[in-house]
């Protein structure tokens, strides 16, 4: 499980994101309209691909794609 794979998955989930747009240090909120519906999509994506349930605060606290990825890995190790 690499961060590149994670970025691919996020880009696939959001139509407005072209493949290759996001970088590990991108602030993902700048790339697509950020609202609660999109937060739910991220939670569902992470749940189905990584089998961990991230909460809304974790997403709010993550500044970059990398932060989010690290949180997922942390939850995965703890589970």
């Amino acid at each position, binding site marked *: 499980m690499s961060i590149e794979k994670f970025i691919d998955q996020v880009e696939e989930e959001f139509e407005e994101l072209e493949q290759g747009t996001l970088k590990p240090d991108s602030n993902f909120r700048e790339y697509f*309209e950020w*609202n*609660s*519906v*999109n*937060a*739910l*999509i991220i*939670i*569902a994506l992470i*749940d*189905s691909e990584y089998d961990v*349930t*991230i*909460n*809304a605060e974790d*997403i709010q606290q993550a500044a970059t794609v990398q932060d989010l990825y690290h949180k997922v890995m942390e939850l995965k190790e703890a589970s």
Partner: protein
Amino acid sequence: MAVLTVPHTRVRGIAACVPRNEESNYDYELTSEKERKMFVKTTGIETRRVAEEGVTTADLCYQAAEQLIEELQWDKQEIDALVFISQSGDYILPATGILLQDRLGLPKTTMAYDVNLGCSGYIYGMAQLGSLISTGGIRKALMLVGDVSTATSSYRDKSTYLLFGDAGTATALEFDKDASEMTFNLQSDGSGYDTIIIPEGGLRKFVSEESFKYKDHGNGMVRNGIQVALNGEKVFHFSMREVAPNIRELVENRLGKALDDFDYYVLHQANMLMNNSIRRKLKLEKEKFPNSIQRYGNTSSASIPLTIVTQLHEQLQGDVKNIILSGFGVGLSWGSVNIHADNLVIPKLLEV
């Protein structure tokens, strides 16, 4: 652990009633077209039924009950119990179920009461009423379940207004010593009480002039104190975390079966993305998960019976079907049940 097995109780029939008045989420004026499309794509909710002012949950349940009693050809004198499960009763007191006993023309020998639960109410209600019936003292009983949630949601709150639809339902239960057992797994977590809440109007925050003042909570959420507030991300996280394990515990540990052994899983209809994610966690195919959310929205405690009436009407005729029902949400409260659907009487959806 609240895992219980209820013998000698058969579900005989299920009826549902919705208001004729339909609203489309594509017509909502307070968000952009793009945002509306995204909302529909994610939640699945395209249209919802909205009760006219003055129409209550009891009115919708009354219609469903009359239809079901007639279809079953039940003698009203033989109905021993009525329970009304809702969070939108006619009055703060008395309990609405008692008014319905009289309105339906049931005898004074009928016991009637209310249960104050939302999304999990159908499961909890069935556990309670089924337990009473299994003693043999109650032979025929009605469970009237639903909510008119639109009366307490603010048009200017996009986090709630687009979600809720109104519906009232009736389920008939009967004592039958040969009935297959119903097995329940019921749970609660009151630490999440404010995840979905109408904060004012109860004793904790008694209704005052302040209660009627609209406040801007940011992000397209303008509402007053007697309207519902919902934290979508928290509800979502809760459902993703708790529902699949609750069902697994029931199926694998209590019933000793495999998830794949059941014909249908009827889940509370809150959000399509959520239900798809729960289904994926259980690794089951789409065909086993009927949905009514597209056309009727989140109808609170009515969503499970409404889905059965609108989506499984034909499928539940003929051979016995082994099904799982699961409700989850406000409280926080959740639970699931395994029932055997044996030639259920399911009249056509009523619209008033």
